[in-house]
């Protein structure tokens, strides 16, 4: 019976020739979006190759080696740290039962709400030689001068690895936990019955099975590391990202910036390949549903040790910096300073930018996802477009900005002469910035809406068509109402990410245009620490929303968790 009915539904699911749900206009729009996403990379290559060779030699000799080495060290360090913290915590909360486990299950995701630059900003002050933490340690040890005792300086490679590691581990935690939870228990039991210890079974069975999931989480964390500009710069680590920024901003050398950005693209491609590889095998690994591993109850000191161990990342990655921001905000408001005009304007700018990006990304995502779904026999081409359209998440903000700069300037100049305007209309209205953010965050609505569409049975579309409704009418009357939750969730993710965005915003914002993130950046760069905490708090509060959403969705579907949201 079931065999028969699946056979029948498979026939109905075949590409629907004759439906032509997405007409030529849709397909053209989808193609344009895909090409738009690829345009910055093409422009980068062109810019980089167009510059003369001596230019390249100069960069290769004086700028690239140090920046590339720093980036490699940072990626290695952060990679190792997120793997250890993420895998360790995921293993603890899925296989052991200890006090606080239920809370930690979702609390371990909280650092996702902390942009890297905010954590760096907070820890610079918290761990300052005359700051609260070092002061407390000296008081405990009975010293009275920073000269007698001080922690290693946070402004270092080690400091950057620490800061990025404690906020980026949730990517690994998330994918590893999903994998451990779906791993069939009998595999572990088989290993134990063959004479392996608990640790041996973990090392020889659970870990290799989880490797694809770890690769996915690791690549996402490293893409974020590569994207980061604030933390590295505050902590004085000159990475490739920072080099792109300074080459363009302080030396106005677009060709040079493009060449460094091209070098970064190679790293990006490697990381994306790692991620895709992981995802292919992950699908295979979690295909079977069987009895999952039951957590083992821990007792006494071991139990409390586990609690302490799993709480530490939450404390360091979220609670401490959040409390710091709250305290600083409280102090500032206590002193009777109102919010400055500049900060209020930045908040307005941030919300306007995030709203615009959300609308653009959701509309573009809907076009791409709908065209892919109804592509019929041209399915492969449409799939290719969908994949191209979602590549933006992997491209670091600075790279994207440099790549977008020259096509945007060309369009702007053309537009200005066409309309008889002076200056650069798109650039100064922030349209270029909004486009850059849309490209970067497009993967979330495309993925979310595609997943939503895949849950709508094709029979609904067919029923609607047979009841006399056209393809567009079916989209409006059947699919859009059913997609509302998927659209709302991806809109929230885009909105919050656009609010947090720093690197592309720094490069592409119009003159005298600040968002909360650039406001914070400017204060941290000046070392003034006035209203930075308030701006940061605003971003973190907004950032908590999608984390709550994520935590809830994972709590309610413990057996078959969705693919984790992209960063």
């Amino acid at each position, binding site marked *: *019976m079931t*065999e*028969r*009915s699946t*056979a*029948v*539904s498979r*026939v*109905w699911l*075949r*590409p*629907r*020739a*004759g*439906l*032509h749900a997405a007409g030529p206009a849709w397909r053209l729009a989808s193609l344009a979006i895909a090409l738009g996403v690829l345009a910055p990379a093409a422009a980068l290559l062109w810019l980089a190759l167009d510059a003369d060779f001596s230019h390249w030699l100069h960069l290769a000799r004086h700028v690239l080696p140090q920046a590339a080495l720093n980036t490699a060290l940072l990626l290695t360090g952060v990679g190792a740290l997120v793997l250890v913290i993420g895998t360790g915590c995921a293993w603890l909360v899925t296989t052991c039962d200890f006090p606080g486990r239920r809370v930690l299950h979702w609390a371990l995701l909280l650092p996702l709400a902390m942009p890297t630059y905010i954590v760096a900003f907070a820890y610079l002050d918290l761990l300052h030689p005359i700051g609260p933490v070092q002061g407390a340690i000296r008081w405990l040890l009975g010293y009275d001068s920073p000269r007698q005792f001080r922690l290693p300086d946070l402004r270092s490679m080690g400091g950057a690895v620490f800061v990025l590691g404690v906020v980026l581990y949730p990517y690994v935690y998330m994918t590893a936990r999903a994998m451990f939870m779906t791993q069939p228990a009998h595999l572990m039991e088989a290993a134990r019955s063959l004479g392996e210890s608990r640790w041996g079974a973990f090392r020889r069975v659970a870990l290799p099975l989880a490797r694809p999931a770890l690769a996915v989480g690791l690549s996402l964390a490293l893409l974020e590391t590569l994207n980061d500009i604030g933390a590295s710069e505050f902590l004085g680590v000159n990475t490739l990202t920072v080099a792109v920024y300074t080459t363009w901003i302080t030396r106005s050398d677009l060709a040079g910036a493009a060449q460094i950005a091209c070098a970064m693209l190679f790293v990006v491609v490697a990381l994306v390949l790692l991620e895709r590889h992981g995802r292919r095998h992950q699908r295979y690994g979690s295909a079977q549903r069987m009895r999952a591993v039951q957590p083992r109850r821990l007792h006494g000191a071991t139990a409390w040790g586990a609690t302490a161990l799993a709480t530490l990342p939450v404390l360091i990655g979220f609670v401490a910096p959040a409390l710091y921001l709250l305290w600083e905000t409280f102090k500032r408001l206590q002193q009777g300073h109102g919010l400055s005009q500049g900060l209020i304007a930045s908040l307005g700018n941030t919300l306007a930018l995030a709203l615009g990006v959300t609308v653009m990304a959701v509309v573009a995502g809907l076009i791409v996802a709908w065209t892919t779904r109804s592509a019929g*026999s041209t399915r492969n081409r449409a799939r290719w477009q969908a994949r191209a359209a979602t590549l933006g998440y992997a491209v670091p903000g600075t790279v994207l900005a440099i790549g977008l700069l020259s096509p945007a300037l060309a369009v702007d100049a053309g537009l200005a002469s066409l309309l008889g305007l002076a200056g650069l209309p798109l650039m100064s209205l922030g349209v270029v910035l909004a486009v850059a953010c849309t490209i970067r965050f497009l993967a979330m609505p495309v993925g979310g809406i595609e997943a939503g569409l895949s849950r709508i*049975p094709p*029979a*609904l579309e*067919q*029923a*609607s*068509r*047979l*009841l*006399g*409704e*056209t393809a567009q009418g079916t989209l409006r*009357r*059947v699919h859009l*109402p*059913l997609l509302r939750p998927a659209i709302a969730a991806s809109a929230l993710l885009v909105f919050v990410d656009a609010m947090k965005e720093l690197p592309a915003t720094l490069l592409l914002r119009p003159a005298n245009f600040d968002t909360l993130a650039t406001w914070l950046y400017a204060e941290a760069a000046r070392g003034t620490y006035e209203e930075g905490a308030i701006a940061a708090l605003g971003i973190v509060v907004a950032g908590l929303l999608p984390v709550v959403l994520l935590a809830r969705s994972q709590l309610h579907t413990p057996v078959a968790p969705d693919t984790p949201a992209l960063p």
Partner: protein
Amino acid sequence: MTAALHIEDLRLAYDGARGLHVVVDGFNLHLEAGRIGCLLGPSGCGKTTVLRAIAGFEPARAGRIRLGEVLLSSPDVHLPPERRRVGMMFQEYALFPHLNAAQNVGFGLRHLQRAARSARVAEMLALVGLADARARYPHELSGGQQQRIALARALAPSPALLLLDEPFSNLDGRTRERLTVEVRDILRRAGQTAMLVTHNEAEAQTMADHVGVMHDGRLTRWSEPLGH
């Protein structure tokens, strides 16, 4: 309203990994207006593909499909599904989950004025015996009720032909027997031309005036059922 179905020399195929894969070839069928026909056969024999082609989801590679005087499909003609006046009952009901029973039944009646539409919806709900379920959503209905709403929805725009794709296979035995008879009587009363696809021989015998047995993409028998 209701019309006769003619299929001549129909060939259906889809683009597989290794070129064109022919599923149905040299398929002929004539169903008079007001009659109920049934395609019977094992899974994979191509019966559902024929139904898809009649509905307009599958192009005709050769031959033609006519409904009354209207040419629906030929290698050069492909009328879009929404203009074929073909209704369908799906195996998995395919009720719109965001609309209640009355809104589902009224989905295909947008061309009517509001008053005429709600009169037609009421008439259809009464026809399937679910007049008091109008405000309920699909998830609040039993499987048998859902399928009856699906029938009301399909019949509401007065289609020239009704297609039924394994319409009772998701129901339990007793509901299935009862509903088979009910649906047959409703279709007979309305004089509705209908085409059923099933793998269940008893269902075919109960429902249909003509039963066709399909094998390897061809109709091997097209007959009056026993006892008629």
